[in-house]
């Protein structure tokens, strides 16, 4: 019998044509657009007198440049402002649906899309942003593209692609107390490295994954790109359907049953062959903390900073030395002794309601340590913010000394005013700890929301699984 992986099914159901060398045209169902990677694409279309193939497939939102406080004052940086205004003008001209600044539906593009029901099982989803892998959590084929491809998809509704290899990351068992899908993601990246998934589409499976909420699955797929994989995915199931039902862009009642019937087929067949399979025991995963300048430089919270002197491989040794120097860390320091200056809770990785709840549960009744200069919580969208406020989470954060901000990408990449100063050390729920990512000279440690909140209260990393 011809068994297929989920990736095979998604690929085959969108294949428009294939050339002799395997180069294919893949039909794209959903195109998400933000202000940073789209202006040159719109300009290219205009220069070539082209119009979007299917305007209804496009959904736009500004997120990278958006301020997270004093929203009413607008964007003060004129270059940032022009970029957002350019998106507004392009969308208005072409009739593209956009959730502008100030709209409660505005937020980080990868939070907004699923929240609106604009990401559905069986879809192909693209966006000029590497974290588009997030949407694979719905049993969709979703990946980030460059600006030339943004223009290509707008003009042709297709992407030129070659089929990826497939990797199954199978996680079974029960996650320990305080251990989240962020920790699974970092554990996997630590195992296979940031290039381990290059050339692959990763499917996350196993009973641990089945037990994750949609928010948890999105966090996991979001980080697939940090393992080098353009696409991460999870098979659609009842959890998926329940999440989607009733959302604005979800199928209407008359089409719902037909849609769900189809969506139930969106899983890898029993016995389907993957090019690579990795298995993890969930019970053995501990809360993770990155110590270096690449997401693969990660350790369990009870670990100690590695010692380059003990490394045989010269490339690895010099990378470690460079990372420790940039991070201002000494070899053999216990992770729990690393003191932090700032805390950032938010981003397309961990800016959803469940993340807010997890951080608030830790923050409740506590106080941000006096040594911590700033602890900020940035909800992923206006709707996440409203929901959190309805649950009183904002009050918990504010009482504990956190700042409660407006939605946007914020200090994940520091394109707006939220950034680290040189030498500042941050516990961050974002996705990249690259040099300068959160501000030139800034030092990032990637953690889960609970770990970030706990670090804010203690002033250093602590093991939330022991609390």
């Amino acid at each position, binding site marked *: 019998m011809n068994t297929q992986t989920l990736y095979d099914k998604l690929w085959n159901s969108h294949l428009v044509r294939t050339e002799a060398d395997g180069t294919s045209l893949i039909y794209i169902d959903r195109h998400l657009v933000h202000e940073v990677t789209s202006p040159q694409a719109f300009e290219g279309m205009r220069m070539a007198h082209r119009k979007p193939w299917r305007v209804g497939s496009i959904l736009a939102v500004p997120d990278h440049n958006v301020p997270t406080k004093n929203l009413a004052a607008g964007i003060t940086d004129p270059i940032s402002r022009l970029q957002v205004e350019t998106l507004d003008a392009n969308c208005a001209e072409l009739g593209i649906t956009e959730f502008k600044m100030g709209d409660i539906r505005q937020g980080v593009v990868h939070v907004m899309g699923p929240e609106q029901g604009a990401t559905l099982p069986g879809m192909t989803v693209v966006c000029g942003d590497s974290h588009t892998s997030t949407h694979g959590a719905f049993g969709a084929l979703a990946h980030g593209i*460059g600006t030339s491809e943004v223009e290509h998809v707008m003009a042709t509704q297709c992407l030129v692609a070659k089929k990826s290899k497939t990797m199954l990351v199978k996680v079974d068992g029960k996650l320990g107390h305080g251990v989240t899908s962020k920790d699974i993601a970092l554990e996997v990246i630590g195992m296979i490295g940031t290039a381990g998934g290059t050339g692959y589409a990763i499917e996350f499976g196993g009973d641990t994954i089945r037990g994750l909420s949609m928010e948890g699955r999105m966090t996991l797929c979001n980080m697939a790109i940090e393992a080098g994989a353009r696409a991460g995915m999870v098979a659609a199931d009842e959890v998926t359907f329940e999440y989607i039902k009733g959302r604005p862009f979800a199928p209407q009642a008359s*089409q719902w049953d037909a849609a769900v019937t189809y969506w139930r087929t969106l899983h890898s067949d029993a016995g389907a062959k993957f090019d690579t399979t990795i298995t993890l025991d969930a019970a053995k995963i501990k809360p993770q903390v990155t110590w270096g300048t690449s997401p693969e430089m990660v350790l369990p919270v009870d670990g100690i900073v590695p010692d380059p002197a003990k490394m045989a491989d010269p490339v690895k040794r010099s990378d470690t030395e460079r990372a420790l120097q940039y991070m201002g860390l000494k070899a053999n320091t216990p992770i729990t002794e690393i003191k932090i200056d700032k805390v950032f809770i938010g981003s397309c990785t961990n800016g959803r309601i469940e993340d807010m709840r997890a951080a608030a549960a830790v923050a409740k009744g506590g106080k941000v340590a006096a040594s911590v200069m700033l602890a900020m919580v940035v909800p992923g969208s206006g709707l996440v913010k409203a929901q959190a406020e309805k649950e009183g989470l904002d009050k918990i954060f504010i009482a504990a000394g956190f700042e409660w901000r407006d939605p946007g990408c914020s200090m994940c990449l520091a394109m707006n005013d939220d950034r680290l100063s040189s030498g500042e050390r941050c516990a961050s729920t974002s996705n990249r700890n690259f040099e300068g990512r959160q501000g030139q000279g800034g030092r990032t440690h990637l953690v889960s929301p609970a770990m970030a909140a706990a670090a804010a209260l203690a002033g250093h990393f602590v093991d939330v699984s022991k609390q």
Partner: protein
Amino acid sequence: MQKFEKFSGLVAPLDRANVDTDAIIPKQFLKSIKRSGFGPYAFDEWRYLDHGEPGMDCSTRPLNKDFVLNQARYQGAQVLLARENFGCGSSREHAPWALDDYGFRVVIAPSFADIFFNNCFKNGMLPIKLAADKVDELFKAVEAKNGFALAVDLVQQTLTTPDGVVYKFEVDEFRKHCLLNGLDDIGLTLQHKADISSFETKHRASQPWLFA
């Protein structure tokens, strides 16, 4: 898009693994709504001692003398030699735009991140994967000889050193064809307009909710 023709170019060695696109072009420069002018800000945080902002006149900024691209012997380099997983991280096409604008036409590394690799071809640049030991040989050769240049021949898929050592490299037929002829992807795809339309009609019939 410009056609990719045979050339001989000075090689600059960037001896780091996992060079990410945030390092190639930091976020503050992504606020531009143009495709050009990123070259002076390529590797900004490594290249200059001060903090760069869009619109700065880079000719007066203090250079980091320790950064390899600032060394006199690598001025005018057109080929960048790097280590594993070059171009990882963000999908920003500003990274190849910055390298291109700086003057690089070719990047050689043992491996590349997928999105960056793809983005290069869309801009007439050629990323070349060579085995790690070959890349290592090239690093040593570049270090040993001032003015080390490589002859890049895409038709033959070869790199030739000044001493006549030839390295073969692989490239997708379709991508090679597009580079050599300077072809615009969109124009090519639109030749298959009828195929796209007929696919779309079937797709709409089977999953109408996608078109609501």
